[in-house]
């Protein structure tokens, strides 16, 4: 099963960079793997994402989120079904993420099943000011957050549960509106064709 780990965000808008930072560190910690590509800086959504995701069996997105009264450093786990009920990967300039994926599937593109789309969204404080540093509250929570996200990604990739954060009491919180923590369900059927282009490191 080929997985794409995608770090979403903007490296120069303070906490919006958190998905990028996490993708870099998680990707480095996981090391080279034949079943994993990492794109650690991605700022596109909607139809554009189809080009990136096509050919993969599984997608893991690390992104930021801002909810009412949310605590920076808290993180949530969504799958594609949850997102359909809440939002998308935010580039709604064209189509939302769920719609883009549905369109791609309808025309025969090889895309991850909904059950194999895992979005880990980190609660942030500041995505308004330009800056290359995380805000103080998120920076304070970052090391623990990174370890938890790494553990969670390992669960997604390999089913390893060691070191995984507890759903309650830790930073792993159920999102308001139905984004409750979920573990990957039955993997999608393996397919033989590989992604058109193997990609790693920074988004081109």
């Amino acid at each position, binding site marked *: 099963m080929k997985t794409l780990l995608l770090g979403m965000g903007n490296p120069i808008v303070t906490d919006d960079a958190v998905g990028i930072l996490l993708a870099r560190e998680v990707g480095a910690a996981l090391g080279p793997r034949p079943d994993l590509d990492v794109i650690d800086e991605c700022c596109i959504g909607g*139809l554009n994402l189809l*080009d990136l995701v096509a050919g993969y069996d599984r997608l893991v997105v690390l992104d930021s989120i801002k909810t009412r009264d949310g605590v920076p450093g808290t993180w949530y786990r969504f799958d594609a079904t949850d997102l359909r009920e809440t939002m998308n990967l935010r580039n709604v300039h064209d189509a939302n993420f769920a719609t883009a994926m549905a369109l791609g599937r309808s025309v025969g593109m090889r895309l991850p099943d909904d059950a194999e789309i895992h979005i880990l969204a980190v609660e942030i404080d500041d995505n308004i000011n330009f800056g290359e540093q995380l805000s103080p509250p998120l920076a304070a929570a970052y090391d623990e957050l990174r370890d938890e996200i790494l553990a969670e990604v390992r669960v997604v990739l390999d089913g390893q549960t060691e070191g995984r954060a507890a759903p309650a009491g830790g930073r792993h919180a159920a999102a308001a509106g139905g984004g409750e923590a979920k573990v990957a369900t039955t993997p999608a059927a393996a397919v033989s064709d590989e992604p058109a282009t193997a990609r790693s490191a920074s988004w081109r």
Partner: protein
Amino acid sequence: MTRRISIDPITRLEGHGKIEIFLDDDGAVEDCHFQIPELRGFERFVEGRPIEELPRIVTRICGVCPASHHMASAKAVDGCFGNECPELAHKLRDMYYNAHYIHSHIAHFYALAAPDFVCGPDSDPAMRNILGVVDKVGLEIGGAVIKARAMAQEIQMILGGRFTHLVWCLPGGVAKGCSMEELAKIRPMVTQLYDFAQFSLQLFRDVVLGNEGYVDLIVNGPYTLDVHNMGLVDENNAVNFYDGKVRVVDFEGKEIVKYAPHEYMNVVAEHVEPWSYLKFPYLKQRGWNGFVEGIDSSLYCATPLSRLNVADRMATPKAQEAHDEMFKTLGGKPVKAQLAQHWARLVEMVQNAETLQKYCDDPEITGDNYRVVPEQITGEGVGIVEAMRGTLTHHYTCDENGMCTSANLIVGTTNNNAPIHMMTKRVASTLIKPGVEPDQGILNMVEMAFRAFDPCYSCATHSLPGEMPLEVQIIKGGKPYREFRRNC
């Protein structure tokens, strides 16, 4: 007592925006505010950095039109280094930029504009999207859209190495040229993109112009605005997206001013309203006269339709044919029907494809004189391009060491802030009346008013909002009266 309806965030728009509609006791619209948060601190962020870094930084401002910022920034930086950019570099940049336009216009038409017409303004919101379009007009359309976008993107990749976070433009030119082999890859894709542009135009004729109700909505509906128009033109006053002078034409079609990029501060000023983070540009010499139309207005639109309104002609023959058909149908220039923006984008897309064809046939395009290393620092530059959403201005200064000392940006959508506000209010006032409770169809028709402008407030942030994509809240007597939600 005022009731308030909030549409937050607006569906199918980049960034987090909110529309608030204020109703009086009888249920008539009193006012309408279009609000968005604005990113802060860009100028402080870039001050003190090497000026040549800015074209690479500004691509992060917006994930939707990164090439527009890259090009405007590159031209401003060229100015800081004495404008020693060879002609071939300008051609290559222009070639890239026309491919970028096609990529963007396809997305807007099929994912944002077409659902309102193909599916209908009051159709089920769950299907009023590109899936609904495909469901109505055929699965092959979906495949063609994806393929055409992929080709436009591939051309950008070949020319500039990336289609986002571009690092291609350098002071004095571009980092790489276009080889014969690369041109051979590009040429057949350009042919297909031209065909796709014509196909899209025909789809518009069939679906929109073939429906009398839609034509009536475009021409006679509440979606008209009597303000001035702004857009970039070449030396023949033909539409240009990358270079030229900015022409401003009044609401009756007479030229007010045509200015070179470095003169922009003599023409454009910005007004501040306490309820909006975003400023309201206006024509400086006319002064701020408020949100008014007609002879007393100092407001302008900078949109695809504006570009066609201010130009005397298109730059390419088939686009000219499409242009003539449009203005003949809509009654000549200037067209004030803002829903015609969607048609104007398709006319532009024909020019984009023809421009790419022109460059494919240009024997100089594979040359190697695509950069000169600047030998002087002159300290100031203004770069203007037409972003897909409007005239985009970057103005930089630097010190004798080439370190940035100031940066000022007027982004495409900001130009249209006042017109969007006025258009939204007009449509809301027309549709929401005493005794008429706003329903999903009415609210979507309000959204259509600003969707025509293709406004983009993304300016970089990609955080999930964590809330429903659309909230409509009606407040009566200061208390929640009615609330409902829907998805994109």
